């Protein structure tokens, strides 16, 4: 029976293999209490970690731990509060004088001065440096010189920025913009130390900032270890010893690691796990509104969509969508049906107005059918909703919307989904104005201001006005709002402008997106800020 011994041997190999791997198991370690290290899921940032080059959440959450700017958005309310700024004065909403607080330094000991800001902003705006957030500086005077629409930069400095002394600098804008200081909490406006300019490659491999954490080690593509910085000046000192950000190839895998006790925090619970999340985590699951709204945008460069009748069609389509049912079943209530074009995180004082959309966003299939047939039907005979199929499970909800529209119109071919293979291809078709019907549009706010939900998306020629919508009345109201020195009046003007968007149904609001996160029993005091990023510095380790 030699064969039998072979079989035993083979079985033995498997057994040894499994036993050996067991040695690799065990907790994530890292101490407890104020020195405890929190391990958190992370995605590989798309761009190098530079403040003005980071435009997505993964890089953004690192900058949020590493950098502090003039202002910082309150993690609970989203209100812009002074951080490094002692005061920002203006008399005309166009010329600002920024005074810095005393005593702030970078973690390498260098002082944070007015020059740290001016140099950083000049670097960010300069076309030469290919910074993807350069447009954040577009309101500063001289932007068209340092970042011309074509050709190369004519100068290396923004003419609107002047250093007065170590603690003061002045900013001249190229238009009136009363709420401009409130935009300064955006990471692109962070100050940078000399090391950034002098040893750029070294800085990128180990960034130096002035925030509550400093970089301990950074292995690109796999792990970033942040540790509490003892010398941090701010009031929001880290409540834990540090954060280990681990890159996960898939958020499902991160979730698995969390349930197995190898990870403390997952800030993006995968849609497929939403059914189990209550049973797995209980009240260690967070589901709170974030400053993200999903809409359907339309191609106004296509003549068929730019007619007075098309307004009725758009409104009809909007009324044919059963938002409540889709958010309940497909998104398991991690989305809230939208009733305006902003986000609940702004709060009523900030410009959010529930129900502003009115009838247009209320499910009413009979009225929808009537409106669309009055207007002569859907342009081109069929509604095709374009989306990218590679990420974000967009197929499910697009199909659901089409289903809803088809039911309302009593025609099962009235609406179909139009998948595009990759996000890059989807974006390039949009920028080349190749859309023939509605397409998926999402907007994540840069800063919690109603201006950010309207101007970049619907103002004539604005950077993210992908559908090329244009309306003189809307533009006028936005300009008026920006020139207003009183914040409450500015918000009222913006809401009036939003009324124009509603009357024209410039884009169909679908739902507000929530941030969702789950955490282990080791940590507590976990919350998400209005940008759906965990407030890392407040996390306590038990």
């Amino acid at each position, binding site marked *: 029976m030699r064969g039998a011994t072979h079989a035993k041997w083979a079985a033995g190999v498997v057994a040894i293999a499994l036993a050996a791997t067991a040695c*690799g*198991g065990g907790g994530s370690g890292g101490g407890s209490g104020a020195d405890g290290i929190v391990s958190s899921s992370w995605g590989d940032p*798309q761009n190098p970690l530079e403040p003005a080059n980071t435009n997505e959440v993964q890089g953004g959450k690192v900058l949020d731990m590493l950098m502090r700017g003039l202002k910082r958005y309150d993690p609970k309310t989203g209100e812009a509060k002074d951080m490094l700024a002692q005061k920002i004065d203006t008399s005309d909403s166009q010329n600002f004088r920024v005074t810095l607080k005393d005593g702030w330094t970078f973690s390498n000991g260098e002082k944070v001065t007015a020059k740290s800001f001016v140099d950083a902003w000049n670097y960010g705006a300069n076309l030469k440096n290919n910074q993807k957030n*350069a447009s954040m500086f577009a309101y500063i005077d001289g932007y068209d010189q340092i970042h011309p629409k074509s050709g190369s930069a004519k100068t290396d400095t923004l003419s609107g920025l002047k250093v007065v002394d170590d603690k003061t600098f002045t900013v001249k804008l190229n238009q009136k913009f009363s709420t401009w200081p409130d935009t300064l909490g955006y990471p692109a406006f962070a100050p940078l130390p000399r090391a950034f300019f002098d040893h750029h490659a070294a800085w990128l491999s180990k960034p130096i900032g002035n925030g509550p954490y400093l970089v301990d080690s950074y292995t690109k*593509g796999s792990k970033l270890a942040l540790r509490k910085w003892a010398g941090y000046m701010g009031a929001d000192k880290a409540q834990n010893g540090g954060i280990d950000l681990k890159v996960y190839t898939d958020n499902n895998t*991160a979730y698995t690691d969390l349930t*197995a006790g190898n990870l403390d925090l997952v800030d993006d619970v995968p849609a497929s796990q939403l059914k189990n999340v209550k049973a797995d985590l209980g009240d260690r699951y967070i589901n709170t509104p974030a400053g993200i709204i999903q809409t359907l945008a339309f191609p106004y460069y296509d003549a068929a969509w730019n007619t007075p009748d098309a307004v009725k069609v758009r409104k009809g389509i909007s009324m044919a969508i059963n938002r409540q049912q889709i958010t309940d079943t497909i998104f398991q209530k991690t989305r809230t049906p939208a009733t305006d074009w902003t986000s609940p995180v702004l709060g009523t004082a900030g410009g959010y107005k529930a129900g502003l959309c009115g009838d247009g966003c209320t499910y009413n299939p009979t009225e929808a059918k009537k409106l669309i047939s009055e207007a002569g039907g859907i342009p081109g005979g069929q509604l095709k909703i374009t989306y990218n199929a590679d990420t974000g499970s967009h197929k499910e909800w697009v199909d659901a919307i089409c289903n809803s529209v088809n039911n309302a119109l009593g025609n099962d071919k009235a609406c179909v989904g139009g998948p595009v293979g990759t996000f*890059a291809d989807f974006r390039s078709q949009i*920028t080349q104005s190749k859309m023939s019907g509605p397409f998926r549009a999402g*907007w994540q706010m840069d800063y919690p201001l109603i201006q950010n939900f309207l101007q970049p998306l619907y103002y004539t020629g604005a950077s993210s006005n992908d559908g090329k919508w244009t309306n003189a009345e809307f533009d006028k109201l936005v300009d008026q709002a920006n020139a207003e020195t009183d914040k409450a009046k500015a918000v009222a003007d913006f809401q009036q402008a939003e009324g124009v968007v509603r009357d024209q149904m410039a884009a169909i609001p679908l739902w507000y997106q929530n941030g969702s996160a789950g955490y282990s029993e080791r940590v507590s005091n976990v919350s998400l800020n209005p940008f759906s990023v965990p407030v890392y510095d407040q996390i306590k380790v038990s």
Partner: protein
Amino acid sequence: MGRYVIRRLLQMIPVFFGATLLIFLMVNVMGDPIAGLCGDKACDPATAAQLEKEFGLDKPVWQQYLTYMGNVFTGDFGTAFNGQKVTELMSAAFPVTIRLTVVAIVFEIVIGISLGVITGLRRGRPVDTVVLMLTLIVIAIPVFVTGLLLQLFLGVEWGVVRPTVSPEAPFDELLVPGLVLASVSLAYVTRLTRTSIAENSRADYVRTAVAKGLPRHRVITRHLLRNSLIPVVTFIGTDVGALMGGAIVTERIFNIHGVGYQLYQGILRQSTQTVVGFVTVLVLVFLIANLIVDLLYAVLDPRIRYA
């Protein structure tokens, strides 16, 4: 033999160029990579133009290909969109995937060939039927199902192993992923070996060896197995390349930051440099593995000569 190797190496050149050109063209038709870099916002046109120039995307495709190939011969695989050198990505990813592949191949060889020999010698017995059924089940179940189930039971429910692999990816953590990656090939190796052994066990030279009174283990290892291994070696050899490139699913499930992960990221972000660079290396691995397989034939069967 030397001449044979040289001829084979020369044949690799057109295959190499053809494969890279195809990949280059395929990645290029997927759309404008720069447009995807700015997220849901539109890139500002001046920055986009500048980036295109930096990555050489403003030139016609044939010119991009020539420049690229020129650089490759000096060891420069270009820069990925996140600012990292592709060679840097490779030096991080390849060691991990090579370790994973080694684990998988060892499983294939040890378990696959052992099971194949056992069943081949016991055709029709219960052990043969059971193993045949098991291999059929393994072949029928997709890798991601096996992977997720093993991860769920061994990693989460029973806590025998860590459900994911740490960035350093040492051998012991790669055992379960390696087994998952090897599973389907392992079943094929078992079946191939079984058939081959079954066929050869009736051969004259085996009967002669037995008649000579050689011990049974010597008959099996020196005479029977050695002659039966040629189809198996061919399969395992081509599998080296397939495992390295096809590890995407396994690497995703177990969070292994290897070649599959980098390729997946490269495709999602349409980073031509990353995708073409990694595939180029994979093509080379494939070609060399095939050459080694062909050379191994002579070792296994001295009657095979190369002119």
